[in-house]
């Protein structure tokens, strides 16, 4: 069976080709990203860099470094944007956990303080939508991990209204400095 790679670098059967991209191929794929993909990655990095010890540029740079030096294998069948999104997310998670472990090593007072601040962030986000109960419900659902149809049903909105509401929520939260 011959398949075409989603990122267009291979047209040979997967059993004949390497399973992952080489670092050089990964570099070429990153440079070939569209302006929209680059913009999306920057926005993702901004979101995930919150509550890590570093800023979004550090997070993105670290993700790219790991891809370029081959530390993070890039499966050939995975498109660039989802793959890099996953790398950014996992590094942010890693850093956040390191941060929490540092908290554990720190005094109990400091650890407790951080946990309180994290709780305050949730409260702050929910309070941001006090003027819009429908949006607040959706945000709460997002925080609980609800997605798609489930979330739409939870909000009680029609599909168009629901999508419009989600766009407003996203824009407002992107501007929020936590």
């Amino acid at each position, binding site marked *: 069976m011959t398949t075409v790679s989603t990122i267009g670098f291979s047209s040979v059967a997967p059993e004949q080709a390497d399973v992952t991209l080489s670092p050089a191929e990964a570099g070429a794929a990153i440079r070939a990203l569209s302006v929209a993909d680059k913009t*999306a990655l920057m926005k993702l990095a901004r*979101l995930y860099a919150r509550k890590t010890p570093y800023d979004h540029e550090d997070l993105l740079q670290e993700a790219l470094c790991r891809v370029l*030096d081959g530390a993070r294998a890039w499966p050939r069948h995975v498109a660039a944007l989802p793959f890099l999104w996953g790398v950014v997310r996992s590094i942010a998670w890693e850093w956040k956990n390191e941060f929490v472990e540092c908290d554990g090593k720190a005094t109990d007072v400091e650890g407790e303080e951080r946990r309180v601040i994290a709780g305050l962030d949730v409260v702050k986000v929910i309070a941001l939508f006090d003027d819009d109960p429908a949006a607040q419900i959706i945000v709460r659902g997002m*925080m609980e991990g609800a997605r798609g149809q489930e979330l739409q049903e939870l909000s009680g909105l029609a599909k168009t209204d629901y999508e419009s509401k989600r766009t407003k929520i996203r824009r407002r*939260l992107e501007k929020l400095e936590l």
Partner: protein
Amino acid sequence: MNRSSDHMQNLADALSEDIVATPAAVLLAEVAEARGDRHAFAVDFDRIVGRAARRTRWRGIVQRLRAMLPSFALRSSWRPALAAVACLAVIVVAGDLYLHVRPVGPTPMLASAPGNASRVAESRREEIAALPRLSLSEEPRADMDAGAPVAAPPPAPPPADTVAAPKRVHTMRIRGDADAPHEAPAARPATAAATEPPAPPAQAQRSRAAVVAARTTPAPPPQSPGAYAAAPVPPPAPAVAALDRAIGDHDEVPSFAWPLSGQVIAAATSAKTGAHSDGIDITVPVGTDIRAAADGVVVYAGDGIKGYGNLVLLRHGGGFVTAYAHIDRILVKVNDVVQRGQVIAKSGRAGTTPLLHFEIRKGSAAIDPKQYLPPPG
């Protein structure tokens, strides 16, 4: 994305899904609204990619070096390599120091070379000549004592690259002299230094012609490039013997004649201003015969000295040197023995003025030529 117990993480995941699902035009419009440029985030992304690529490259280099170090340590092959590099560095530094700090005079190593023997011999002769009762050369004296007629041997056959050879010699010496001006008196005859008045400030800074006059020697005979190695010191070159015979008694002041007839337009010492120059300028039509001012030997003929144009230097007895500058055509070669009044060149021009610049030097010091020239007639 898996559900997490972290509310903020879940929220970020949900927002990320929205971002990825948002149409490109909407995303870019949002960026344009926030930053004023649709491509602002893309530009930032490219900058970060460049940084990441550089960092990855450095990481790779460091990793490769770390991987190489153990193998080097095991083989110990770096020791001879390091020793070879150190030796090379020492040789380069020593050579550089030698070229910059070496004395102007010939070193023993150079003196052993047959091509440089004549230069060494002449240097020794100048030192001997500085002593009052010592003759310049042993050979002619012995001939004279024996009453044998002195037959001047023909001058040394000029090498094929006669023009190139003197240039190479004087260039090297000018640099050495300029670098170590305190060594110049050592090359000057002691008698000359004792009899000459102290040089005025303007004269203290010697011109390049003075340097050449004081130091230029007959060009070495042609030789193969490898002839410098372990060659025995040969007897003085025929050119040096010819020089000795041509200039006669070393202490005797030659009888100078005017090199040509013309109007002196610039004297060594200006009557009006008292300004000093190294010689006189005589205006003559271009192509006028220039005659040797006294018996001597051509020690330089060429255009390698800036500001003098075509230049001929004659060495005479008594440590005198005459210079003929800005000439149009040179009719003699280095090592040629010339007689007083012999045509050695055709006059040229300095800039737009047709003239001959004429100098008389004793050792390295310029002397007013009119002191030694007969009244113009």
